[in-house]
């Protein structure tokens, strides 16, 4: 990794992040800096706050304490400013969240048309380019519910990429897929990683983590317990909690 010039602010910076759902403390003193082009895989037991963490990055969840900065810009000034910051971030969800009333192509051009005011023809060309990249250009005229889960998730990835985000967030993108379809989605993500995109991925696909992650983060009970390069993380985890978790998912 070439170290970015000190002057350019990091893509994602979480400082002293705390979040509560009612009186329940979900995220506790989270500090995280993600470098340009860095790929981070977040894992941890269910309910440990992984989704909440990643959703704080684009402020789908608002944190009560601490600062979230994207490319040096902090959220919170105004709703308009928040929406502007968000446009640099693409997100892919566990349940795809494609818009069922629009075709695949319209799903992809949606943000271009309504957020970036791109002319229709240009938007469609761009959308087709990304649909080709995720290898489903032939499905462009279909509706999302007519596709398989794996295809839907690839459309979701293409849709997120269309606005040319500089950061991509993935929240368990393969956990609602049938086993045969997991690979086609992971392959797409590997290609994306190789293109140099800054990525934060919540996933339990350890093969994927080994292959593309620069850093693996393990969370439990709202805290970042351990973070390390994949090799160190999988072969020599420091904490007992991490070892227990790895034992469970690798040999369970």
């Amino acid at each position: 990794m070439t170290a970015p010039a000190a002057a350019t602010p990091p893509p994602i910076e979480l400082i002293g992040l705390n979040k509560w759902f009612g009186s329940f403390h979900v995220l506790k003193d989270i500090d995280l800096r993600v470098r340009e082009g860095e790929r981070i895989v977040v894992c941890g037991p269910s309910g440990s706050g992984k989704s909440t963490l990643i959703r704080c990055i684009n402020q789908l969840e608002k944190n009560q304490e601490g600062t979230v900065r994207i490319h040096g810009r902090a959220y919170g000034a105004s709703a308009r400013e928040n929406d502007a910051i968000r446009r640099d971030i693409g997100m892919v969800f566990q349940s795809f969240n494609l818009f069922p009333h629009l075709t695949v192509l319209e799903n992809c051009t949606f943000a271009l048309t309504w957020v970036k005011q791109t002319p229709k023809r240009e938007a469609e060309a761009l959308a087709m380019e990304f649909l080709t990249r995720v290898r489903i250009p032939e499905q462009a005229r279909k509706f999302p519910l007519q596709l398989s889960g794996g295809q839907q998730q690839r459309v979701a990835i293409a849709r997120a990429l269309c606005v040319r985000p500089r950061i991509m967030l993935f929240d368990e993108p393969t956990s609602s897929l049938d086993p045969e379809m997991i690979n086609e989605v992971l392959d797409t993500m590997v290609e994306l990683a190789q293109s140099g995109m800054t990525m934060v991925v919540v996933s339990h696909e350890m093969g994927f983590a080994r292959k593309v992650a620069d850093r693996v983060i393990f969370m439990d009970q709202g805290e970042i317990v351990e973070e390390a390069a994949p090799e160190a993380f999988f072969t020599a985890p420091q904490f007992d909690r991490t070892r227990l978790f790895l034992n469970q998912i690798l040999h369970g």
Partner: protein
Amino acid sequence: MSDVMTPAGSAFEATPARRFTPKPARPAPASTLGLRGWIRQNMFSSAPNALVTLLGLWLVYVFVSAIVSWTLVNAVWEAASRRECLDQVGRGGACWPGVVAWIPNLIYGLYPKDQVWRINLAALVLVAWAIPLWLPRVRSKLAIGLSLVLLFPFFASYMFLGGEKGPVWSALIALGLAAFFWVMATSAAEIATGRSFGRLVVVALGAAGRSDAYRRRLHVAALLVLYVAALAVTASLSLSFVQTRLWGGLFLTVVISGFGIAFSLPAGIVLALGRRSRMPLISLLSTTFIELFRSVPLITILFMFNTMLPLFLPAGVEVNQLVRAIVAVCLFASAYMAEIIRGGLQAIPRGQYEAASAMGLGFWQATGLVIMPQALKIMIPNIVGNFIGLFKDTTLVSIVGLFDLLSMARAVGEDTRWLGLFLEPFFFITMIYFVVCFSMSQYSLNLENRLSAGQRR
């Protein structure tokens, strides 16, 4: 690239694999296919089933033949009074001349005969305005639909009411008329050339290559020309005043339910969003309004508005009885519509909103472009059901002294010539209600099928 997951396939290679060949598909048994197969399977599959089928057919026959013989076979078509009918066939056949003589009143109420063309003209304008919404080549559908709901009422109100028109009222009427001119112009332009009216004007004046601002100014100028033309037409139009007391019959029913339908959908959307709002005051106000109007019968609301509204208004301000009824119906319908739409909104998963929000869409964009279209679509049957209910509920306005279709039908039997003729007019208006409501429900089915065509798994 599929080494992303650790593949387990190689472990199997020690033993040779058996080959799996799927069985070919066979056609379904002949006895279950075709009309005969269907009849045998569904109507005569067993002795009890056959018995029920025959009993059902017999009942249908008895019922239909009774109706046909009363309405058609034994009916009287020419007579000067009910007495003559009774002399000819007694009570065994319908006496239609009474209904025929009253048809103008059943449709227009007591509206002056020589002015009825105004209602017909407005109805024609309404139809012409709405037709482009179904033409595939017309693209400005949203603008046409909105103008129909928002501006047609001005034009129609003047056509129906007539009378003196001050400058403000004239300006509004002309606005409605100009919108109609625009709808006609842009529909024609889009059908003929594929360009909207504004674009066509720009191109026709040879200004296609000029700057955006210049073209926009031309466009506005063209719209102004339409408006001035509409003003001129409005000024030259002077219609006699027809009091709302004379409005009645199907016409009145359509006016009241038309206002109710056009108002309740947008108002229901606003109320439903208000009720779900995170701002406590807005949510409280919307909820209070909805629950208040939903927990009181329409009759009561009509009474309240009729007798109590004048108490709240400053002395001297007179609100027309029809307006009072329309306001009551609109508010009542909105409260119901709000709950229907809220149901639709609740069926849309949170993820839809989150996906839109993650793309950088604001609340209103996400709501208007992602959530609301889906919510409205799944609620089409309920929304149209509500419209149908509303259309029928307008019969209640007879309570506050308005002569809707039902009251007019009742009036036939009180006419001295047709004294006691109740069944026939009721049969006639039943048919009218049935045709209107059934068409609405069929259209809703059709719409539902078309909209969800691409979306079934």
